[in-house]
């Protein structure tokens, strides 16, 4: 197995922090908010590893820190602390001084300047958010949304960008004649598929999915999941899949992390976790899901 991504000690705290935080928060304490200083530990000391062409699931209840985790990987919002490194990827060879001489791993991406973080993000990652309005500009045409990613990567030909956008929209089953319409005219499922097209526009090896099917009705969920699966095979993507829906995780992911109150409480093969959950919280999660 060829590793693509490794991270450890990922932490994001909102608030001042205090000496009592460590004991008073986390899965054991049953909260991520410190009762002494009021700090919220959205994500605490999380480690993960992702292999090439593997899908890693992250499950947990709402507020468990799974979205925070995936957004840290995408450099969204306030920087947190920890180590996050990517293996050598051809798309990233152009980013200046990213890989130390002879090292198979990049520098710690969380401590890079924002300019290079954006380069890494544009070249290596795509993200699909739960709410399409986070990932799409609703006033800009669907084709323009895809073009934005391409423009950021230095494309300067309208014809080529439109060709690429049409190609991606076709793959994600959006009629290409609606390419110049803004996504706000589209249904929720279509918006989600435009988001996927946008995320894939730069041919990223890594796709981050943050609750992609939440809020869609069941038949649309199934179509979106089928699409993601097909694209994963076709484009040989590696994925981090965040969901509170164990069905989605079971369908897409080989390995899974279970999070609670900002910490990872259990990690392992998806089947193993679903068949034989060890942690009390995972047992609860599985039991409540399978009824």
């Amino acid at each position, binding site marked *: 197995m060829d590793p693509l991504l490794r991270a450890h000690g990922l932490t994001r705290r909102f608030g001042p922090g205090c000496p009592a935080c460590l004991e008073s928060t986390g899965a054991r304490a049953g909260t991520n908010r410190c009762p002494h200083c009021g700090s919220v530990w959205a994500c605490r000391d999380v480690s993960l590893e992702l292999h090439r062409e593997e899908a890693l699931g992250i499950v947990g209840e709402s507020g468990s820190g799974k979205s925070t985790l995936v957004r840290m990987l995408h450099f969204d919002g306030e920087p947190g602390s920890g180590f996050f490194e990517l293996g050598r990827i051809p798309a990233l060879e152009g980013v200046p001084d990213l890989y130390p001489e002879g090292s198979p791993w990049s520098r710690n991406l969380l401590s890079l300047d*924002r300019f290079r973080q954006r380069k890494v993000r544009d070249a290596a990652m795509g993200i699909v958010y739960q709410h399409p309005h986070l990932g799409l500009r609703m006033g800009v045409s669907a*084709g323009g949304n895809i073009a934005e990613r391409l*423009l950021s990567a230095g494309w*300067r*030909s309208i014809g080529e960008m439109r060709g690429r956008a049409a190609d991606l929209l076709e793959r994600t089953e959006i009629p290409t004649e609606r390419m110049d319409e803004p996504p706000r005219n589209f249904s929720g499922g279509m918006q989600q598929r435009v988001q996927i097209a946008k995320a894939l526009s730069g041919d990223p090896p890594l796709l981050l999915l943050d609750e992609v099917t939440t809020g869609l009705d069941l038949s649309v969920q199934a179509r979106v999941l089928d699409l993601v699966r097909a694209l994963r095979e076709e484009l040989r993507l590696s994925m981090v899949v965040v969901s509170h829906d164990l069905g989605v995780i079971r369908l897409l992911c080989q390995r899974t992390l279970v999070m609670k109150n900002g910490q990872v409480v259990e990690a392992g093969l998806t089947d193993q976790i679903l068949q034989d959950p060890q942690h009390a919280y995972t047992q609860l999660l599985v039991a409540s899901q399978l009824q």
Partner: protein
Amino acid sequence: MQALEWIARGVPHRETYAFLDNGAKKDVRRALLKAVAIPGYQVPYGSREMPLARGWGTGGIQITLSLLLPEDRVKVIDQGCDGSVNAVNIKKFYERVGGVAVTTDVSEATLVQTRHRIPEERMTDRQILVLQVPYPEALREVEPSEAATRRMHAEADYARMWLHLYEDIVRHGEIRISYRYPCTVNGRFIMDPSPIPRWDVPKLHMADTLFLFGAGRERRLYAVPPHTRVEPLEFDDHRFRVEDFSGKSCARCGATEVYLDEILQPDGSSLHFCSDTGHCDKRMS
């Protein structure tokens, strides 16, 4: 090097020469040096009160005043015209506070201050053109937040500006920006060239002249040093183009290949005249 020499030239000692006190001039000149060093970068400075409302050219006036020497010969243009009220009053102001001579002939001037036009006559390396700027932020069209546009400049994150042009082309078949056309300066910053028509944008590219831009209300100034690349944003398959005046000429001096104003006549027809009156006068004399 010449650009730096110009800005670094000595300030007369009398405190009140050219209206601004020496402290203010130092502030402006320091900002100008930084602006020349980082072409296209907007340098903040402490914009002073002028005997003119902000937004009426106070940015340009402060730059001119901080550079003015008694031996200077100044030309002031308002949208191509030497004779508009604003241009005449600013000129009178310089005569009074600086004791400088004024002219309408570009080639005679050492300092030219302008609002929204660049003279037709190519300027030399012994001249400075000061442009008045109402909105220095080229990205304001796509991003209302100042904090966000500064971050975008810092990271050269210009995809949204390009997207704005892409959408224009998709919706209307061409880029609709007629003035304030965004340009990339020295391959780095996207700059607002002030509301000059597209016609004037190519004059900024690899010019012999130092261009200084001042926005008094917004408290920013920036510069294009001589021999600097200034490239209007364009796509490989949608090139930047200037206004088309083919087949038209100035009804007064007969000039072609100049920026023309269309003047409607009482009978509904229209005549075209040079927008640059100094250039037109020179051709007539």
